[in-house]
């Protein structure tokens, strides 16, 4: 079989990227429909992070950043408001940077990377929230959010590992 020409790879990548953005967008929306209330704001599964991790492993860090940025801006304008967008942005950027680093140092599997992502997502949001309301009492939430981030990160990581395994074959052979 002849190697695919440049345009073909570009088209495939664009289609894949579009699918991932749509998926992340839908996951963000789905999650806002399911109210999870543990008495502490900020606890959630982070389904959108699943897409970010899959993108990070199947496409690369640059693509994962683009994807997250587009997803946050889209959901912010559609379902949120400027302040919720600020929180998502802080959490999303910090979590993605940590995940990219964690992937680069190659001592963790997808699960470990995802756990770090989950924990730092919550940390980023608390940092911004504490800056905005100028109240250090918000850090009282941090331990609980670290634990919830770890649990959510583990679940998402296991899911992501399965997805990456299957999608990779699809992308490679596609």
């Amino acid at each position, binding site marked *: 079989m002849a190697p695919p020409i440049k345009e073909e790879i570009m088209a495939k990548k664009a289609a894949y990227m579009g699918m991932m953005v749509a998926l992340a967008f839908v996951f963000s929306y789905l999650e806002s429909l399911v109210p999870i209330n543990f008495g502490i704001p900020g606890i959630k599964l982070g389904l959108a992070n699943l897409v970010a991790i899959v993108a990070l492993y199947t496409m690369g860090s640059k693509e994962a950043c683009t994807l997250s940025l587009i997803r946050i801006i889209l959901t912010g304008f559609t379902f949120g408001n400027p302040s919720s967008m600020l929180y998502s942005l802080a959490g999303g950027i910090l979590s993605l940077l940590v995940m990219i680093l964690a992937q680069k140092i190659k001592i963790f599997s997808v*699960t470990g990377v995802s756990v770090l992502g989950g924990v730092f997502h919550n940390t980023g949001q608390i940092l911004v929230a504490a800056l905005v309301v100028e109240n250090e009492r918000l850090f009282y939430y941090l331990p*609980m959010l670290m634990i919830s981030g770890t649990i959510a990160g583990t679940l998402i990581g296991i899911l992501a590992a399965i997805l990456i395994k299957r999608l990779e074959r699809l992308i490679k052979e596609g």
Partner: protein
Amino acid sequence: MEEFTGPVDLNSMKKNDVILIGVILILALAAFGGISWYSEKNTKEAEAVVYVDGEEQERYPLNQDTSVRVSLEDGNYNLLEIKDGQADITEASCPDKVCVDHRPVKNQGESLVCLPHKVVVEIENGEEAKIDGATH
């Protein structure tokens, strides 16, 4: 154009992941312990504050049972008793005994007043009343 990254070994590093999760959970528990220790140190305990003629005289924590005689210059007195986290005036030399008949107080802002002696016992840093403000 970057190529897609190569195959990822998904199951080889489980041990590091478990260590990571353990470390994060321990950190979270430590932070939790630190925060509750810190906030406990900083929460003020409920106190009964005694005022005579509008001036603060003495503070008594509600969690220590005690019996205090609030003596006035003219020889009159009110006996303040703190028991079971409540403050009560059990004896007084005043003519009307309104302060003695008043039920014990323990909630934030509640007070015992002896008008003839100008003695006021007020609760500070106490819990908010569970029913409503009208019960003061």
